[in-house]
């Protein structure tokens, strides 16, 4: 692939951003990240356990670019403090902004999300907000300075793929910032569809981490994003209601 993904003036050579949670073992996590070809991985920011010392994800994936998230935050205030902690912990001003409005569906709280985006942009962060697949919200987020928008394909962890392809296509066509489909990707074809519809990248975790063979699925995803992106650039044929023969109609034997 010759063309690359650019976010906030920085070039990424992979159109896959991989989450690091829920892998069967640390070894499988490391191997899956490698097999995926991704350059950037997401991490969460959590209180340390006061009874035992957790695993050192940062050393484990040293060499990869970290995209910390604000997963689980329910207010702009908590998300902003989490982003500041992440910036200090990892030395990056990039943040995957998640502000959840409902614990059951994990839908974003749009008003808190807009408020947090605006404040974080002012504080010098490169903000990548997880948002609804709503063209108006995506536009608003870009208007107030989001470096990319990350509409959901479908519910987080659901594996339901791109639930509303028409919306996603519209969002991608109109967006002035890269569109990264975040959440809902279940298997390689879902990632292909997201890219075919014009997404610049996909961010996924569960589809790889919980696959029977996470390393093999990571490999599949690597090719899926490339296939989808190439197909988008190539331009698909229009759909037709009727058959149209592909072989010449003249010179048939026996005619």
């Amino acid at each position, binding site marked *: 692939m010759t063309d690359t993904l650019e976010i906030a003036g920085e070039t990424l050579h992979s159109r896959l951003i991989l*989450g*690091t*949670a*829920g*892998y069967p073992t640390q070894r499988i*996590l490391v191997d899956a990240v490698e097999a995926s070809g991704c350059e950037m991985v*997401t*991490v*969460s*920011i*959590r*209180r*340390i356990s*006061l009874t035992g*010392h*957790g*695993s*050192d*994800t*940062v*050393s484990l994936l040293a060499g990869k670019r*970290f995209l*910390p*998230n604000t*997963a689980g935050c329910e207010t702009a205030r908590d998300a902003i*403090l*989490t982003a*500041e*902690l*992440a910036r*200090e*912990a*990892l*030395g990056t001003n990039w943040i995957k902004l998640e502000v959840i409005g409902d614990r059951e569906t994990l839908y974003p709280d749009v008003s808190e999300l807009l408020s947090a985006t605006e404040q974080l942009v002012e504080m010098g962060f490169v903000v990548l907000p997880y948002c609804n697949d709503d063209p108006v919200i995506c536009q608003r987020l870009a208007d107030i300075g989001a470096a990319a928008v990350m509409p959901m394909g479908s519910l*987080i962890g659901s594996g339901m793929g791109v639930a509303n392809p028409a919306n996603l296509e519209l969002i991608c066509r109109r967006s002035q910032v890269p569109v990264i489909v975040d959440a809902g990707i279940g298997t390689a074809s879902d990632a292909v569809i997201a890219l075919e519809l014009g997404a610049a990248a996909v961010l996924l*975790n*569960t589809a790889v981490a919980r696959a029977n063979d996470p390393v093999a699925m990571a490999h599949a995803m690597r090719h899926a994003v490339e296939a989808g992106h190439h197909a988008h650039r190539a331009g698909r044929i229009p759909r037709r209601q009727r058959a149209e023969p592909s072989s010449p109609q003249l010179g048939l034997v026996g005619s």
Partner: protein
Amino acid sequence: MKLIVNGEPRKCGARTLFELWQEETGEDSGRPRRGYAIALNGALVPHGAWHETELSDNDQVEIVRAMQGG
């Protein structure tokens, strides 16, 4: 010193944020390590200020770390 660390009441011998971080994490490096961050009473304290930031009774401290996440 009585502190609230990550939401739990603790009695600590540490006098500075850096000492508290060492106590709670078991880290023995002489300086803050990548992957960790601390907020004191709701405000971020940069790595560079951990040594000089003294603790007071009833301070609320959040010690966080980058972990696996999606």
